[in-house]
């Protein structure tokens, strides 16, 4: 797995595809903290959402990095499609960890808040950041060329999903009572964002359920992806 991760890392780094999204994230964080002071957990709610979007873009540029032919070669060398895709998901998530760390530490180190954040707040904020980036990774993998051949359609569908995820609360309130439960299929990012916005009033159970919901949702989505990959391998509808 380490060899696979380091190979994927070398390919991604030398492709420079990470550049625009990473730059926008770092510059965006620096820009929003130009105005001081800022509330601690509300600011983290914003950066969690921002990281979710940026991770989607990063993962979208990473997931089809290998051509179909190269992926066939990598698959035969590693011996398992599940192993290959776990490595891809994992690598993409690991790539976002420094971004999450930056989003949590930058405002704290450079005194951008209206008060000193507690250690517990920093740890929880980091945890919510990395969970939201993991959620973005497992969702974005479904928009690879293997599932949607047209890049235009896949980008459009991914944008729609991100918009729905961000507007989950609004969608839920607009829907008739009878179909409200449908919103359970919308990725649970809003739960994390709401919790961070009302962090001081939240109970331990609220904090843990936001983590649990995101973890459960993303594990189901990742599990489904691996199952589909195991069944289809490198097949695509038009190969």
């Amino acid at each position, binding site marked *: 797995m380490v060899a*696979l991760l380091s*190979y994927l890392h070398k390919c991604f780094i030398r492709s420079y595809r990470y550049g625009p999204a990473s730059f926008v994230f770092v510059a965006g964080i620096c820009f929003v903290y130009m105005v001081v002071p800022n509330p601690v957990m509300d600011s983290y709610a914003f950066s969690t959402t921002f990281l979710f979007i940026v991770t989607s873009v990063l993962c979208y540029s990473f997931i089809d990095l290998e051509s179909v*032919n190269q992926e066939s*070669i990598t698959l*035969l060398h590693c011996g398992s499609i599940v192993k290959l895709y776990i490595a891809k998901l994992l690598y993409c998530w690991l790539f976002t960890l420094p971004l999450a760390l930056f989003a949590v530490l930058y405002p704290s180190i450079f005194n951008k808040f209206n008060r000193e954040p507690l250690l517990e707040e920093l740890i929880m904020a980091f945890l919510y950041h990395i969970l939201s980036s993991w959620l973005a990774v497992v969702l974005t993998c479904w928009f690879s060329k293997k599932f949607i051949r047209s890049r235009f359609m896949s980008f459009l569908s991914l944008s729609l999903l991100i918009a729905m995820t961000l507007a989950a609360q609004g969608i839920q309130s607009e829907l008739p009572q009878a179909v409200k439960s449908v919103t359970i299929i919308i990725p649970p990012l809003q739960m994390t964002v709401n919790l961070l916005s009302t962090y001081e009033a939240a109970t331990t159970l609220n904090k843990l359920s936001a983590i649990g919901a995101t973890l459960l949702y993303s594990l189901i989505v990742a599990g489904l992806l691996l199952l589909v990959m195991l069944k*289809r391998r*490198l*097949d695509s*509808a038009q*190969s």
Partner: protein
Amino acid sequence: MNGSNYLLKLENVTKRYGEHEVLNEVSLTIQRGEFVVIRGRNGSGKSTLLKIISGLIPFTSGKRLILNHKLVIGYTPDRLTPIPMTSTEYLTYLGKISKLESADLQKQIKELHELFQLEQSKKLKMTAFSKGMLQKLNLMQAMLKTPDLLVLDEPFSGLDKQSVQHLLSSLKKIKGEGTAILAAVHDPLLASQFDGRTYWVRNGQLETMDAQEHSNASYTLTLIHNELATEQLVEQFPNVACTVGANGIVTMTVDVRDYRNFLLECLQRDLELISLVRKEAE
């Protein structure tokens, strides 16, 4: 042929994409150290068959049986997409992914560079490689872990004549060491260089290429025009198609049964040959 001593066997494999049937009830057995050539038109399903044999894509129905789970399959797609790495870096990563020991791996990489006559540069990245160099690297990656079965999709594509000859002799050497080779080859002349079984993929089915199909080839000769000699040749070989060009060039097409005598007659009559092209009937 001992049926139980196979490396890999396909039994009635069918592959469908929606309504479109690419392969229909295909059966094929590959034994250790043999050469199997797959031919067919573009889009006939050759690459799909190769991918199924390599285990890269699933099939709709049928069976794919392998000798054991440790069977090593080396696969070369029709072309390698260049990535910004040197050939050594690329092979080192793939070797490590294949769990090869570091010392053995470096030795193997050096030997493969020597075998395929590719310079082991520390600076030149794959993005600067020629088509032929990429094709050699494509074959090298498939041979990192000495394969039991080497699956080649158009292995000669992009190679110059010298590289083709070198690759042919390398493949014969690899075959001699016990590796079975399965190759989809478009070029009939190259396909005929392999000493092994040849199959055609036609209408989704795998057909053995028989002697009749070999005899359907024809040869087109381009010669400097000599009126008398041309007339005599046409008289002597009534099946020859002859076209006299305005530029003093004559083009003659002769079938495989006549070409040997026809060629000798041309030489005896001191006709100057410009080109000779074999065309395979499909």
